[in-house]
Structures are given as structure tokens and as C-alpha cells.
């Protein structure tokens, strides 16, 4: 995972392929959950799920663990960089 700087100097995790949040959307659809259902299961608003899926919001580690748990995935799978997760060959 690459740690990047955005406007305002806020440090956020960024995917090297620019697809931050895409994995959340994919895993949610795979799990057959609506944004509203996922929001309700982790105790946040639907807008917050949308923000995570569009990469506008990087959740705290606590919320990330909740979302990962609800989707049956790991935090690395959802927000990690695919390059980092590729098996070493």
C-alpha cells in the first residue's frame, strides 16, 4: 500500500492503481448486501459506505475491521494494494 498526501496535507492510504474503495464495493456485491444493509450492520450511515466505496473516506482501523468482518474479508483485501498482496515469485 502506498501512503500518499492529498489536498490539505492529510495522509491517506491510496491504492497505486487508483482503485481505493473498489474492493469494498466488489465484496459487498459479492456478499449480496445493499449499501444500506452494510451500513446498518456496521453502524454507519449509507453515505459513509458510499464514501468508502468511492475512496473519499479512509475509515479508522476500528471501522475498517468492522466492515471487513461484515464482508467476510480482511482489511488488507479491502484496502490493501494488490501489488503488496501478490504472491512473491
Amino acid at each position, binding site marked *: 500500500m502506498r501512503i500518499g498526501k492529498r489536498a490539505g496535507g492529510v495522509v491517506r492510504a491510496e491504492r497505486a492503481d487508483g482503485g481505493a474503495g473498489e474492493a469494498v464495493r466488489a465484496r459487498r456485491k459479492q456478499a449480496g448486501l445493499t449499501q444500506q444493509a452494510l451500513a446498518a450492520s456496521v*453502524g*454507519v*450511515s449509507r*453515505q*459513509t459506505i458510499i*464514501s468508502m466505496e468511492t475512496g473519499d*473516506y479512509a*475509515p*479508522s482501523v476500528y*471501522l475498517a475491521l468492522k466492515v471487513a468482518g461484515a464482508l467476510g474479508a480482511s482489511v488488507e483485501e479491502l484496502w490493501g494494494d494488490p501489488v503488496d498482496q501478490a504472491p512473491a515469485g
Partner: protein
Amino acid sequence: MSTSHLSGTPSGIERLAAYVLDFDGDMYGQDERERTRWYEGIALAAAVQWVVVPWVMAITVWSASAATAHVMRDIGIAFLLPMLLATLYVTRRNVDTTVHRWTAKRIIGTLLTVIPIFVFLAGYAHVTGMSTATRWGMFAGALVGGGSVIVTTVVARRRGTS
């Protein structure tokens, strides 16, 4: 109100923050993202106020009556003093407030907030008909007061880092 996120005994300012910022309530949104956005919005408003209010006071005091100038002075004090809470609070919460680099933005921001205070004091002295000696006393007091705040802050930071 909860101060359970704090380590050690919460200070008065931390208790005040926990109450005002409603850490466990929904006054600032339903979740952590919405809370963050609310806090960003409030910080933005405060940053703009920090510049706009002193400048409005600095400009309008020149056409005010003496009685109005006294009221403006009191409102100005009531406006500026709570702003010091920001630095006190973040220092208490272990934020390093040391200025590492005086960037152009920081210099401009400082000038934009400090200059109107002195312009207001000059206007206040003018419309209230202060004697020259009193005016010099007021400006000396402002300089000494400002200097004391800076020295106290520097000493507190050095103690905190040693």
C-alpha cells in the same frame, strides 16, 4: 458525556470538550466520517471568523461612538479569548504545536490576525479620546501581554518535550 477515550484524569478543558463536542452522541453526525466532516466544517468557520471578525472590528471602530467602541472591545475580548482554547486543547491532547517552518501561508495568516487587533486598538483609543500616555500604556500592555503568551507557550513546549 464520556471522557473514556482519555488516558489519565481528564482536565477541565477535556471535560468541556467532551460535553461540547458530544463525543458519544449524534449531535455531529451518525458515525466517525460524518463527525470528522462536521469538525472540519466548524474548524473552517472558526478559521474564517478568526480573520473576518477582527478586521470588521478594526474598520468599523473608527466610525463608532465611544460607547459603541467599549461594547466592541468587550465583544472582541469575548471572541478572541475562547479561540485560545484551540491551542490549549490540542496541546493537552499531545499535539505538537511547535512551528517548524514559517511558510508564506503561516506568515500571511499571522499578519491577517494580528494587524487588525492593533488597528482596532488604535481606533478604540481614537474614538474614546484616550490621552497619549494612556494610549502608549495600552499598546505596551498589548505587547507585554502578547509577549507573555508567547514566552509562556515556548516554556510550556520546552517542558513538554524535555
